[in-house]
């Protein structure tokens, strides 16, 4: 009898505790009553955000949005792999945990095909004037669209750039030594051969100086960095419906890529993700890297950079006969297809608020990335960030499709991430790695 009493008592305590928790949760959802004028008072949205430089300020934007509308947008900052997996599972299972999510532009094909995010076209058309449609650089619209649907709204535009140590490139002694060794002037490289010469010249391992660095970690990191070089050689993973990753151009790209890790990069680069690569540059170990423009402001922040005031930014070099490449990437923001009508409408209001001209300008001063002409041409911002004209140039000539934004992109990236890593670690030869990658990719279709 005592045992039974004990069990009953335990259950009561359990239910009371659970009830209390639910009651607390309910209070959170309902929030406190406030001014009558706020249209979305008490509403809560959840936003999955990629842990990039721009992420922290989104919390500030969220607070401003709450003050203006009453709706709270809870920001969940996640790493690249974690974000991809979490939102994909959320979308695929229809659980609608996140109303909003940052969308890498390479996911647009998959998201459209699977119906993961809402088509924003009707909203954009309705509010075209309010969002000042033409102020957003056209390539940004293209990157968030697929099959005539706008599945992600432009949020943060990135230009792929060659980042280099301007102070060393302008150093008189270095210039003289380079000319004596290679027979031409040291300047930002136009060709990949010049890039190789400069990388070799600045690699002085006994001084912990490394000429060129790339991501080497197996997975998305190494896959995406290798694709930059593939583009520079004029290679493509898929061309006219055929798998062409084992082409001569891709082979040349992989050979150069292997050489980066063998000869010019810090010893640990084979395990580098984006943040490791940036750290290698900011700590003065690496002299050059191909990187996204979102990281550019960070080089001037003396709290995290030892190379403040010493960085130059240029268009990445290409192989002879290959057009100058203006690689463009970045992040859009999508609304979960399973979000309720009401939440989706609030999410749309938040997107407009977050990407408005005024907010974008503030955001730029806090590690944001531009999407608008008005931001890129803003005199105040240009005074602070003289490199914005380079980014504008890249955007106006930009190519966001050198990484295939097709629905199968994630599987392709997985394959490339493994095979390229096997090549740089010499588990496979360049030919073996590309042949295996081609075979694996063909098996997807």
């Amino acid at each position, binding site marked *: 009898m005592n045992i039974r009493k004990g069990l009953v008592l335990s259950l009561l305590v359990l239910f009371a505790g659970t009830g209390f928790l639910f009651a607390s949760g309910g209070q959170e959802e309902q929030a406190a009553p406030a001014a009558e004028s706020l249209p979305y008072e008490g509403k809560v949205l959840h936003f999955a955000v990629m842990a990039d430089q721009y992420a922290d300020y989104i919390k500030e934007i969220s607070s401003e949005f709450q003050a203006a509308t009453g709706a709270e947008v809870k920001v969940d900052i996640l790493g690249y792999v974690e974000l991809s997996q979490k939102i994909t599972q959320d979308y695929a299972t229809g659980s609608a945990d996140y109303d909003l999510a940052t969308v890498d532009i390479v996911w647009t094909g998959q998201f459209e095909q*699977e119906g993961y995010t809402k088509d924003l076209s009707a909203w954009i058309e309705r509010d075209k004037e309010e969002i000042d449609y033409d102020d957003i650089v056209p390539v940004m619209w293209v990157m968030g669209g697929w099959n005539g649907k706008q599945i992600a709204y432009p949020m943060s535009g990135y230009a792929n750039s060659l980042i280099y140590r301007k102070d060393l490139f302008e150093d008189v002694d270095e210039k003289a030594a380079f000319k004596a060794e290679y027979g031409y002037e040291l300047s930002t490289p136009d060709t990949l051969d010049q890039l190789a010469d400069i990388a070799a010249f600045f690699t002085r391992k006994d001084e912990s100086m490394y000429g060129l660095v790339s991501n080497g970690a197996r997975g998305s990191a190494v896959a995406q960095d290798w694709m930059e070089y593939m583009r520079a050689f004029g290679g493509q993973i898929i061309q006219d419906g055929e798998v062409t990753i084992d082409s001569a151009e891709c082979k040349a790209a992989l050979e150069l890529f292997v050489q980066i890790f063998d000869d010019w990069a810090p010893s*640990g680069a084979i395990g580098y993700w984006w943040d490791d690569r940036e750290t290698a540059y900011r700590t003065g170990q690496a002299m050059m890297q191909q990187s996204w423009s979102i990281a550019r402001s960070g080089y001037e922040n003396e709290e995290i950079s030892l190379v403040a005031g010493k960085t130059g930014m240029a268009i990445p070099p290409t192989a002879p006969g290959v057009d100058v490449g203006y690689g463009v990437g970045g992040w859009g923001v999508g609304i979960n297809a399973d979000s309720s009508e009401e939440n989706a409408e609030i999410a749309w209001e938040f997107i407009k608020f977050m990407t408005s001209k005024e907010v974008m300008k503030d955001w730029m001063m806090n590690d944001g990335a531009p999407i608008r002409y008005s931001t890129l041409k803003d005199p105040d911002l240009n005074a602070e960030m003289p490199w914005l004209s380079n980014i504008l140039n890249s955007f106006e000539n930009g190519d966001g499709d050198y990484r295939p934004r097709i629905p199968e992109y994630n599987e392709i990236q997985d394959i490339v991430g493994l095979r390229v*890593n096997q090549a740089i670690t010499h588990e496979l030869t360049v030919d073996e790695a590309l042949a295996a990658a081609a075979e694996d990719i063909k098996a997807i279709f």
Partner: protein
Amino acid sequence: MYLFQQKSFDKKKRTLIYFLVPITVYMLVFFLYPVLYNLFIGFFDLKLGGTAEFVGLDNYRKMAGDEQFLNSLITTMVFVFCAVSVELIFGLAIAGLLNSENKKMEILRTFILIPTVFTPLVAGLVWKSLYHPDMGMVSYYLRALGINIGRGLIVERHLALLSVIIVDVWEWTPLMVIILLAGLKSLPKNPYEAAMIDGAGAVQLFFRITVPLLKPTLLVALLIRSLDALKVFDIIWVITGGGPGTSTTVANLRIYEVGMNQLQVGYAAALSNGLLVVGIIVGLIFVKFIYSKEG
């Protein structure tokens, strides 16, 4: 009188059954259901969020020819064998040292458990920073001692698996110590006294008396650790992500990639069923030894 006793017995029995209800429900919901569901979806071509098509044994046929999965199974076996063997040797040695009753040993016994308290994820992050090829303390001192670690412990193919085995040994040897220490403490004193009277030395005592008497405990410790090591995922995921190349891609990591990156949950379920079979075989081998005459 008899009836009263019978009634009392039934009441006790009922009470005992009440106590068993929570664990039975727990096992049904959190163990049996997932296993059965996993077996079920292993027969389907199922992509997460997509439609399911019954494909019979196709996933298992594909598994038999899946070079990446088979290689990951071999890597898993190497990991299990090396990690558990070293843990057993170290565990036995340390348990022997701690097998005396004094204050110092009691304190040491408490401290030695610290690595086991770390969640593998945190342990992995700590070791990843120690192993960092450019800035890690371990890499620095190994190079300072003139040891050739190439580009770094976790970025060289021939060193990466060894590096994660070391982490596993660091984390789980204490568990082995505790199990074996309990075994050592339960051993009878008489055989030792008799052997010493007969002039047996320390080595003879260890191999002729301690090891045979400790055999059941050793087998249980090996069984627990082997099955646990077979499931390894987190420390490898955090430290190497399965690389460089495929050098640390264990079976669970491959299954995770297929299920979570490629969203091929039907095939991933079949792969995990394959790993389950391997686990059952390993378990049965140990159980056979434990219940054998010698055991």
